[in-house]
């Protein structure tokens, strides 16, 4: 797209910008923004929790799109992108589950409260961790790419079904409201962190898919050509008996 040098450095720009935004946003969230009326200081966790949630979903959606693109066209770069999307999505989903537990303990007195969104994330985390394991166990690059693309599509189609099933299953539990009617003091750090994590995620996916592409390149490297047995390269077979 642009000069090769710029595109090589692009992920680092994203990571730097993301880290800077995340630092500022977290500072504002922790020290500048007023504590929330009902939940108090615990609520400050929301400034990283909600952005993590958005971005983990975004990373997995990206993996899903990459899986569709791979199955449709068979271009290897989409396999690399899918691998990156899945791994980054899984790490973010794991962080999300950890943050969810930290949030739940002081708020409801339990580490896990079976909130539909969080439970869906946990299910997704396991489903996509399974796909990472599948990729490890398949040596052939073509099979690995096709199978993990199929598994990604299947797992992703499950997201809304898991969400609704957990929601109905847990319908006795009151759905907690994400603070939406709050003052702009809450919005600023939330948005900064959302973009911070988004940029981090983009840079990270770019770097990770670069690694995956390098591995694919070595796996798909053409066979050695120099050989003393190459004289009869193109065989013409006569019809005479």
């Amino acid at each position: 797209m642009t000069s090769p040098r710029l595109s090589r450095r692009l992920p680092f720009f994203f990571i730097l910008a993301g880290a800077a935004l995340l630092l500022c946003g977290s500072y504002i969230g922790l020290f500048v923004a007023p504590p929330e009326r009902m939940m108090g200081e615990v609520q400050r966790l929301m400034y990283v929790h909600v952005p993590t949630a958005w971005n983990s979903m975004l990373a997995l959606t990206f993996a899903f799109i990459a899986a569709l693109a791979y199955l449709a066209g068979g271009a290897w770069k989409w396999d690399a992108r899918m691998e990156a999307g899945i791994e980054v999505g899984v790490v973010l989903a794991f962080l999300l589950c950890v943050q969810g537990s930290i949030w739940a303990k002081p708020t409801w007195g339990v580490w896990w409260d079976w909130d539909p969104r969080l439970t869906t994330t946990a299910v997704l985390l396991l489903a996509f961790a399974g796909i990472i394991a599948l990729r490890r166990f398949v040596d052939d690059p073509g099979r690995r790419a096709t199978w993990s693309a199929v598994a990604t599509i299947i797992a992703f189609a499950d997201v809304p079904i898991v969400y609704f099933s957990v929601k109905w299953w847990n319908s006795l539990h009151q759905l907690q409201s994400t603070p939406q009617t709050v003052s702009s003091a809450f919005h600023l750090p939330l948005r900064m962190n959302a973009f911070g994590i988004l940029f981090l995620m983009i840079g990270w996916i770019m770097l990770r898919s670069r690694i995956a592409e390098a591995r694919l390149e070595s796996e798909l490297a053409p066979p050695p050509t120099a050989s003393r047995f190459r004289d009869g390269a193109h065989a013409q077979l006569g019809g005479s008996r």
Partner: protein
Amino acid sequence: MKQLLAALWKEGLLQWNLRSRFFAVAVFGTTSLLLFSFAIGPSAQALRQYSAGFLWLALLLSSTLTLSESFQAETEHRALEGLLLLQASPRALFYGKAIANWLQLALLGMMLVPIMVVLYDAGTADLFRLAGIILLGSAGLSAPGTLYAAMVAQARAQQTLLPLLLFPLVVPVLLASVKATSLLILGDPMGQTGSWIGLLLCFNAIYWSLCGLLFGRVVEDS
């Protein structure tokens, strides 16, 4: 259609010749039901309350055996590849296998019901509806399970991979089936069974079509 009939005929022959395997799985399911009661203790009331969950967990655990075994005969001498080279339709092969697995799991589920009644004192008079729930639930296990079983049968470490991939995916099936069965056993004052059955129908509609579409990509070398 002819292809599907051929696939079903093939599955029928295979299942009939391997029927002893089915009984081994049934014994495994029964054993798990027995073991679950030890985890809860002998309180009859608690056992009755959790009986539906135990039934479906036993079926889920047994399903990994049924599903992974179902591709053993296919990969042993590359029989599946042989059929593909004869231009057999991958979709027909998938639906044949998925239907065979579905019926097997449903039969297994129905065989576990009397054991659940005896062990947990959890029965219902509405056997018709219970059979329907078991049919729907096992269909939900079978469609994605068959696709994943085809995949892992050709991969290393197949024993570990199948549950790893399948279990998170079928969380909604498990939830809906357990809830619907439980409401049937313990009573359904709020009339919620319908929405759980709707969820199962929805899951089945999505996965029976999606997996049929994708199966060809899984079994062909790529």
